């Protein structure tokens, strides 16, 4: 099994090298227009130069917005999710709002929020937070709901108080779904952050993407995209690590979902 997996990785690496090699050669020989498809080494060169220059600052802005949005969106969603999962009354009163607001593409709220909150960080953070809110809420709620009644019965029979049931059964039992919610919320916060930055921000990776299109600096465009891809992969890897640490009882397969 491990052997076949590593074989699959070798194949993937080979295909990637071949693809980038062909691109490099084609771009350098003029088969591909170096203006629209600059060679991979050119893109890496630009990325290095830009990181040494101002790109790190833009990266920090974007990550700040992602974390700010998670803090404002996913954390309250986590708490509300638990409250809804534990109390049918809370769930009944919150459900209508969730059903009404969840289907709205959160980005569509940006113009209205700019009218209400003014031009600046507030409407951006609100949109990112709204994007992160719902996946976290719904997954946390499901996490609490799917806890087996058998486990609650067993804990109760051994004399567990409600507080002990919360701490020893419901909290750990909901961890897998909470982690899934966190992964979806983070991905959505990242996506939304890039999008709002393209819509009128002067800093951040999204703004840099937009600027490089407007100035037709395709090498910068590719460089920023590369950086975004690397961040996306790193976020996934970080969350997998968090899952392994936070929920060591999950199988490797479940933890990777």
């Amino acid at each position, binding site marked *: 099994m491990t052997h076949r997996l590593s074989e699959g990785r070798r194949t993937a690496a080979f295909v990637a090298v071949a693809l980038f090699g062909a691109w490099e050669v084609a771009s350098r020989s003029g088969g591909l227009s170096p203006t629209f498809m600059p060679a991979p080494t050119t893109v890496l060169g630009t990325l290095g130069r830009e990181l040494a220059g101002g790109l790190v600052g833009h990266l920090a802005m974007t990550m700040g917005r992602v974390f700010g949005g998670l803090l404002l969106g996913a954390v309250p969603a986590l708490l509300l999710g638990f409250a809804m999962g534990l109390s049918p009354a809370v769930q009944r009163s919150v459900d209508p709002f969730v059903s009404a607001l969840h289907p709205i593409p959160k980005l569509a709220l940006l113009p209205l929020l700019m009218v209400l909150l003014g031009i600046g960080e507030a409407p951006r953070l609100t949109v990112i937070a709204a994007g992160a809110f719902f996946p976290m809420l719904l997954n946390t709620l499901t996490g609490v709901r799917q806890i087996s009644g058998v486990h609650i019965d067993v804990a109760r029979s*051994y*004399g567990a108080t409600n507080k002990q049931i919360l701490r020893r059964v419901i909290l750990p*039992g909901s961890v897998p779904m909470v982690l899934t919610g966190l992964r979806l919320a983070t991905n959505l916060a990242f996506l939304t952050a890039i999008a709002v930055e393209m819509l009128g921000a002067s800093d951040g990776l999204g703004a840099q993407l937009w600027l490089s299109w407007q100035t037709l600096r395709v090498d910068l465009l590719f460089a920023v995209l590369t950086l975004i891809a690397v961040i996306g992969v790193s976020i996934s890897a970080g969350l997998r690590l968090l899952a392994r640490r936070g929920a060591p*009882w*999950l199988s490797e397969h479940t933890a990777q979902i």
Partner: protein
Amino acid sequence: MVSGTLRTASAGRTSPEASATETPALTCSHLSAVYPGRQGDVQALRDIGFSIRDREFVSIVGPSGCGKSTLLRIIAGLQQPTAGSVSFGGASRPGTGLVFQEHGTFPWMTVVENLAFGLEMQGMPRDERQARALDYANRLGLGQFVHAFPRELSVGMRQRVDIGRAFLSGAPLLLMDEPFGALDAQTRWVLQEELLRIWLESRKLVVFVTHDLDEAVLLSDRVLVMSGRPGTIRQDVSIDLPRPRDSRRDHAAIREYTWHMWQLLEPDVRSGLAIKG
């Protein structure tokens, strides 16, 4: 309550009369359970009454859907009966250990944490309960798995942990709902023997729900044979076989009892099949 006892020539050590003077540790009187259903109410249990002495091992057998598990949940206090009551020799419900068919162990706790859960709920300090659980794990042959999670164990091992947790908790009342129902026949024999051994050492009051008649006779002092829905107690059968018992050595004596019980159950099992088509 119907109360007939089957006597066999081979054994007959305890007489019900001698024990009648003892205060029962658990008494169910006139228990009924009704569930609201789509086509009117469904009566799961009707006028169930019996009492169990301390340290007794009592099994409940019956056709599927006869309300065995409902009865167990009512005794555990997890569900209220529609009518009737459960009372305990003392005033309030004693500490209870519940064992289920398969997924009773907590997936997020290691074997040792699962074993120690009952002690943890009683407020025993961490080091002490850890030491006791480790000691118990070694005795159950779980020594090398103490830091494993249930996912990493076979179903048989998980059931060992679940049963061990119940005994280790020191709860005087143990309720088991088909704990060996998901095991293959050979693993089941091994675990039945183990259960008998730990039970003989500690002599807790055990109420054991099963659909396996051989298992019920092998393990129990008494077997309550239930009817099909609505569940009533058809007969209270004392198993007068000397302990320690062995499922294969005592096969012939056990079969006398199971044959008798099957005759009681067969019509209900057949009509249950007919109803479900």
